[in-house]
């Protein structure tokens, strides 16, 4: 399971990355033997035979066809590698439907895990096998990295932003999570496990409220907390949740929709857009609405912002 080229690939995507790796290694290996072979062969074959006397050497200063070929061929090869690398990457970045969601916050030096239903855990993430998982990543102090070597993916965790990462674990088991962005003294001890459970076991575990392993915390679901926050923070004086228009855009049906912006562009209302609209409303102004919303950056803690985003997502 742990050989160099394919160390325990744990998802179908990982297999594709490995295939790309093998392809590049194959092409690289070919050019490796070609160039090093010629280097060594020429060095040995054309070494000076009689000490102190030069062999006769020809004057060869260029060869247009050869030079053209060795510009053309590497160019084609690198374009091919680029193209394939881009295809596999695009695949990885396309959102899956029906995913399980997990919020993970990097913090010196641990991973804090929050599920939308309010369960929390430290350094341990449980997900069902065979279903897509979406990680919503952020950081509370400095940069961190979220690296799943068995899935061949990683993503930086950035304070004040939400980055996303999708995987579909295929095989139950326990997988290593590393922090890959240097974050201070405990960087190399910032480790966590992704525990992929068979679906039935996962359902049973959910049933028990996810007690084992995770911290048993208050069980208020994130979206419920979000609703409380929205009511308490004055959002509803400008935004409606029932379909009517007010000073600001309506919340119902907002998540996932395409929002036209001032200036003619548009954006998809994903988690990052919602978060940004709360903490920095002026960054992307929705077309047709005045830019009057105050920023909640200082007054709303990141956890509450997260909860609000979860709540907004429920307003289908």
């Amino acid at each position, binding site marked *: 399971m742990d050989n160099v080229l394919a160390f325990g690939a744990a998802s179908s995507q990982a297999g594709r990355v490995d295939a790309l790796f093998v392809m590049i290694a194959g092409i690289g290996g070919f050019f490796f033997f070609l160039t090093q072979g010629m280097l060594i062969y020429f060095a040995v074959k054309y070494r000076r035979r009689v000490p102190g006397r030069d062999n006769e050497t020809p004057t060869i200063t260029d060869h247009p066809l050869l030079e053209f070929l060795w510009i053309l061929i590497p160019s084609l090869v690198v374009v091919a590698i680029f193209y394939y690398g881009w295809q596999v990457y695009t695949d990885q970045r396309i959102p899956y439907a029906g995913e399980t969601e997990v919020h993970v916050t990097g913090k010196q030096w641990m991973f804090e895990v929050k599920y939308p239903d309010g369960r929390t855990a430290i350094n341990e993430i449980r997900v069902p096998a065979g279903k897509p998982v979406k990680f919503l990543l952020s950081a509370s*102090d400095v940069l961190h990295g979220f690296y799943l070597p068995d899935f061949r*993916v990683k993503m930086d965790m950035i304070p004040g932003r939400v980055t996303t990462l999708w995987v579909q674990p295929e095989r139950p088991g326990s997988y290593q999570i590393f922090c890959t962005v*240097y974050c201070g003294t405990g960087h190399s001890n910032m480790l966590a496990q992704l525990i992929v459970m068979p679906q039935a076991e996962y359902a049973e575990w959910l049933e028990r409220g996810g007690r084992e392993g995770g911290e048993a915390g208050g069980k208020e679901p994130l979206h419920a907390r979000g609703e409380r926050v929205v009511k308490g923070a004055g959002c509803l004086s400008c935004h409606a949740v029932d379909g009517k228009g007010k000073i600001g855009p309506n919340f119902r049906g907002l998540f996932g929709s395409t929002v036209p912006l001032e200036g003619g562009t548009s954006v998809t209302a994903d988690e990052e857009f919602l978060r940004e609209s709360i903490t920095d409303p002026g960054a992307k102004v929705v077309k047709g609405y005045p830019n009057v919303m105050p920023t909640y950056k200082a007054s709303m803690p990141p956890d509450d912002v997260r909860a609000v985003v979860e709540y907004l997502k429920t307003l289908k």
Partner: protein
Amino acid sequence: MTGVGRPEAEGNGRGYLADRGWRSWAFTLDHKRIGAMYLWTTTVFFLIGGVFALLLRLELLSPQARYFSNHAYNVFFTLHGAMMIFLFVIPAIPSGLGNFLIPLHIGARDVAFPRLNLASYWVFAAGFLVIIGSLVAPMDTGWTFYTPYSAKSAAAVTTLSLGIFLIGMSSILTGLNFIVTIHKLRAPGMTWHRLPLFIWGMYATSIIQVVATPVVGVTFLLLAAERIFGVGFFDPTKGGDPVLFQHFFWFYSHPVVYVMILPAMGIVSEVIPVFSRKPIFGYKAIAYSSMAIAFIGFLVWGHHMFTSGMSPLANKIFSFLTFFVAVPTAVKVFNWIATLYRGSITFESPMLYALTFIFLFIVGGLTGPFLGAMATNVQLHDTYFVVAHFHYTMMGGTVMGFFAGLHYWFPKMTGKMVNEKVARAAWALIFVGFNVTFFTMFIAGTRGMPRRYAEYLPKFQVENTISSIGSAVLAAGILVMCWNFLQGLRKGAAAPANPWRALSLEWKAASPPETENFHEIPVVTEWPYGYGTPKA
């Protein structure tokens, strides 16, 4: 053959080393002395940086932190990286060998602005003194200084930033000086297409230094402002962007890897023809590819940031452009190999290091596409694979090029020869040690070991142990090499003016050259690579 006023240098004047006393060094306007001062200073930093590297490898013998605390380990890798980059590879070849050689190579008496040249050395010296001052609270941020960690760290980041700012200033001054020198002071008949390829490499390098270095200067000022005044450029709670720093940083630091590599490629382009006794193959292609690399090098900084949450479109563009740096680089490699074809090759130490450069640089270059392709980058980024890749290019490339240059020009610089046998023994240790040390890192990285880890999972123990053993062999080789240079300096045989029978202008000067280099400015009638039987 290059046409020169006289066939051999006369050597009846005073060698540039004749004056004694510290004043004759501290206030010298002679480019050769200034170059020598840079060489001494940077070599000392190379050795100190190397000691830190050995401490790192010592700690990594065992998965747990055994000899040092995690914090100490973090300080060591920061100092190792920062010294190697800012105090060694960036200045050593350009400011050291470049200063010494550019006027000699183009047939000039000195650089265009000798006083500015001296000033740039002392600005550099001030920079390293400030950096040493920062050791009161040693840095633990990595040489990349990523915010917000560097903005919050209790270490003397502000002091160190100031030191790097000064070093950057010195680098800009040197670059400007070289550009003007190459434009204005070429000997009569030295057209652009008769310039030695080392000069082309230095010219491209100087342009990067002048254009990119101000960016890093400003970046470090912003970081200092962030720390002192809490401005919030990079702080999300104040409306800043933590990733912005990375854009600024790599906008300088990617082009700067070419400041490190282009002069070394220039050295290899000088050495290969001399020891093959063949004209360089594809002169123009090598010259222009230096310029192409310098230019494209400005457009690819984003490949250090594929996982930093940039838009997929930006990632694609950076990935595409990255691959196009590979093409002019590959062209150079093919040209060097083609130069060997049907040559009359000898393996004196400069040639051994030049061939080693090509060998290791090919490994470094061929592992670049793994990092340039987005999907494999996402897997390998920030793992030991990257560490192996950049050591193959920077140490296997630049440092081997530097060693080739030191062995090649040692007779010219000092008037002494080194012991060839010892030089070859040192080379063998370095070659073996290098590959054992760094090749294993590709394996560890592919298996998922992240970089900058003081402690690691036991499953990476085998690779790390082998690598640490390799590093001891490598270090032994470097020690033998240094000892050999010192011996050569003290009691080496007197060097003739042109021990390698090379054709470029510097060998027309005496060994060591006189203060004004040439009695008469030579007149150039041909390019510097006219070896072999003349065309019918």
